[in-house]
């Protein structure tokens, strides 16, 4: 269960960004999680709710966007969306697709802030 470590890294990064902006109230964090990131979204959300307590962003929501697994199919000469990381095969022609284009993301994409309200700490 490394989701707690990841939640803490995320919170550290968000607090750092917020401090640079003069500590506005952070309403939400937006993240993107891919099926090959090794992270379970539910566990991350749970960890986040625990880890945000007592930090400068203790009221922030976590908004998780689950991204698709996309691999390049050599036979179709096209990027294809793969249903499951258990079968890295083109959904159209069934060719094996070792060339993963995206799906590893574990990205802190954006932050929603209210600059009318500032927090201390």
């Amino acid at each position: 269960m490394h989701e707690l470590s990841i939640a803490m890294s995320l919170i550290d990064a968000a607090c750092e960004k917020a401090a640079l902006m003069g500590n506005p109230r952070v309403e939400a964090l937006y993240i993107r999680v891919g099926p090959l990131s090794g992270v379970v979204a539910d566990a991350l959300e749970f960890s986040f709710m625990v880890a945000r307590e007592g930090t400068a962003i203790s009221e922030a929501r976590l908004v998780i966007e689950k991204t698709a697994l996309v691999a390049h199919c050599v036979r179709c000469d096209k990027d294809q969306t793969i249903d499951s990381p258990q079968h890295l095969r083109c959904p159209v022609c069934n060719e094996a697709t070792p060339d993963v284009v995206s799906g590893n993301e574990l990205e802190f994409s954006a932050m929603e802030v209210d600059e009318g309200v500032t927090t201390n700490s």
Partner: protein
Amino acid sequence: MSPRIVEVRQNILKQNDLLARDLRSRFSEAGVFVVNLVSGPGAGKTALLETTLRTMRDKHRVAALTGDLATDNDAQRLARSGVPVKQISTGTVCHLDATMISNALGTWNLAELDFLFIENVGNLVCPASYDIGEHLRVVLLSVTEGEDKPLKYPTLFNSADCAVITKCDIAAAVEFDREAAYANIHEVRPGLPIIETASKTGQGVEEWIAWLESQSVVMS
């Protein structure tokens, strides 16, 4: 003022990734080739490493870092091979990260090493997310674990550069289905090189080391 969205666009594990990148350039500059061994608990990482260190030490300057939650049993076993070994106690942390590696290296002179092996914590999930500055990630699958492990843990197998099947000397006794194992590994990571070994008998160890040597030449 109403709330607004500020774009960030950075990897959540940015700090780890930056440190891992630094470590990798440090390793490359010093001419040491670094291999991260990952697997579930009991797949035979320590046994493979013991055999590997003993076999390689005459020809190469080798060393190992071994991660463990609580005990230093693995470090003690590995130290018997007579090469530099250091224990990383992770406490309750289920994986190694770049900071732990950086701290563990301490005063080691990397220029005096050719190969550094890092034995990760036995865990098929968490180590997948953490770059520790390695050149190669090798996943172990023992014949006793069941051929469907790659399908259950696709992320770790997908992130690996090679799969080593261990304990092949008892494959028949546990009715290991070799074809199914190969098929499953290649479902989650098409084309992944697979090496079959048995640390007790030495089966496949020569092939494994030859493969490591060839990779170290390509990468460095």
